[in-house]
């Protein structure tokens, strides 16, 4: 069963396009990564799924129910953490937890556990909190009631690595417990870490849906190798998935390597004596550019 499905979902702000003709499916029990650059339409999509924005066209189904502007029963089953955390600045974390408990009819079963895991002091006022602590509070408020569907918009923004790891662990535990997660993110390592499937959005259009493995195969790496002897481009030229081979100095080579070509590159390098080897992941932007080049037949 699909927990989220959209068909031709479009949202225009006057003449400005938010999203257009977006059709996607998020299966139950999955962690779906929603990737795209700033302004691509990720937040607009999420707000349409939550019934905060009225779609210009198309429809969305969440947890088997059509999304409506007044769908309070549906939101009972959803936890949402906004990308830009904006809470009641004059109130404390505890006040927010009480407010959510009041509106949901009971205190979240995971509240105490999450407070402890994130090491969050709920007694402080929101305006006194750092960006990271506000993000922690938003995460606790969104996840405490153990929702069937978690919608997270850039959930680890502002968090230190330790707390980022805690978020990933909570996501994995929730998924293991049968929940579904819809995760909007810029961060490829985050997506790799927790997602099963990925949707890529650009300029309001969903340009691709991929399994994580498939996206990794498209991922670029930058190779820098220093040989013990003189270098020759022919060592790597012609290998499938390798391009932009160039010599650097007498013994250095650089190249771009697609994810599924790493194995053949390493095996080719093993035929000669290597003094130093460095493989770095391309930035997400490079992955996008490469991906869009593929998707649009050569135009990035």
């Amino acid at each position, binding site marked *: 069963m699909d927990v989220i499905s959209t068909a031709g979902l479009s949202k225009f702000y006057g003449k400005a396009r938010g999203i257009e003709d977006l059709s996607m499916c998020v299966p139950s029990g999955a962690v779906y990564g929603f990737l795209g650059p700033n302004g691509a339409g990720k937040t607009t999509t999420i*707000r349409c799924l*939550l*019934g*905060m*924005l*009225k779609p210009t066209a198309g429809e969305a189904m969440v947890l088997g129910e059509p999304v409506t*502007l*007044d769908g*309070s*029963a549906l*939101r*009972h089953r*959803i936890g*949402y953490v*906004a990308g*830009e955390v*904006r*809470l*009641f600045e*004059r*109130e404390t974390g505890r006040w927010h937890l009480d*407010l*959510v408990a*009041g*509106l*949901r009819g009971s205190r979240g079963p995971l509240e105490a556990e999450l407070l402890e895991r994130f090491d969050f002091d709920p007694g402080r006022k929101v305006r006194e909190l750092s960006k990271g602590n506000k993000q922690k509070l938003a995460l606790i*408020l*969104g996840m405490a009631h153990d929702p069937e569907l978690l919608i997270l918009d850039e959930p680890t923004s502002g968090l230190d690595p330790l707390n980022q790891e805690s978020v990933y662990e909570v996501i994995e535990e929730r998924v293991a417990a049968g929940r579904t997660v819809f995760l909007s993110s810029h961060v490829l390592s985050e997506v790799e870490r927790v997602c099963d499937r990925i949707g890529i959005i650009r300029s309001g259009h969903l340009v691709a849906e991929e399994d994580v493995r498939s996206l990794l195969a498209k991922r670029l790496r930058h190779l820098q190798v220093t040989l013990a002897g003189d270098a020759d481009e022919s060592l790597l030229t012609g290998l499938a998935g390798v391009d932009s081979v160039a010599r650097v100095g007498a013994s250095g080579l650089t190249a771009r390597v697609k994810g599924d070509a790493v194995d053949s590159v390493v095996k080719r390098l093993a035929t000669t004596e290597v003094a130093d080897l460095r493989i770095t992941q391309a930035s997400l932007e490079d992955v996008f550019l490469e991906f869009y080049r593929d998707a649009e037949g050569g135009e990035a």
Partner: protein
Amino acid sequence: MSWTLLRATLRARRTSIMWYSVSLVAYSWLMTWFYPQIGGGQYAELIDNMPPEMLALFGGTEVDFATLGGYFQTEYLGLMWMLIVASAVIIFASKAFAGGIADGTMEFTLAQPVSRVRLAVTRVVALVGYIVLLAAASFAPIAIFGPTYDIELSAQTFWTLSAFGVLFMLAVGGIAMLLSAMFRDGGRAGGIAAGVMGVLWVADLVSNVSEAAEVLDPVNLVTYWQPGKIINGDAVAPEAWWIYGIVGAASLVAAVLVFRRRDVA
């Protein structure tokens, strides 16, 4: 209606609620105390020496100025009370929806299982409660402290004055709340509502000194606000109750309906 949201709404405005209420109690007590200080005869003489245009500025000419009602209308309730309470109500109502959308708290609230209608009705109830509180803070001190200063306000006068004041401000607040449901920015909604009230006040002012402007009176909320007549025991014109009631109810219902259908982020 959600009690949780109602508490949260009133708590978010606790500072302004407290200051406006305390200020109105103090102001009402001061004006009650002041009445015997200037003496009825001296006050009547003072009023007689004023040009009608000046008197019009303080709240219309429908009441005999040399009376208790005339005193309260010209010195307090006709203009100053209207300015103070209308500003409080417009600020409160204009933030009801647009304020939350602008500061992002509406997104947080509507991510919870609360329907838009429920939220909007709660905001309306909060506005009604706030106006009732402001009316009580305005009129109760006159009734309570009045006997000490030889001012007798009958129970019927007190309740009529309170109900009429509440209804007047509900009409004002309803317009502000409707604008709040239409715009993304509470400041803009409040500014337009204040502008509407300003235009109505000027229209009333002009109509008091020029017959040509009286054509606006039947639809002018400010024109119907004659608290001095109520204090003097005169009956309020039925159309005044109707105008306030219809404008208030229609604008508040419209605010709920508009908010129900709009984008909130």
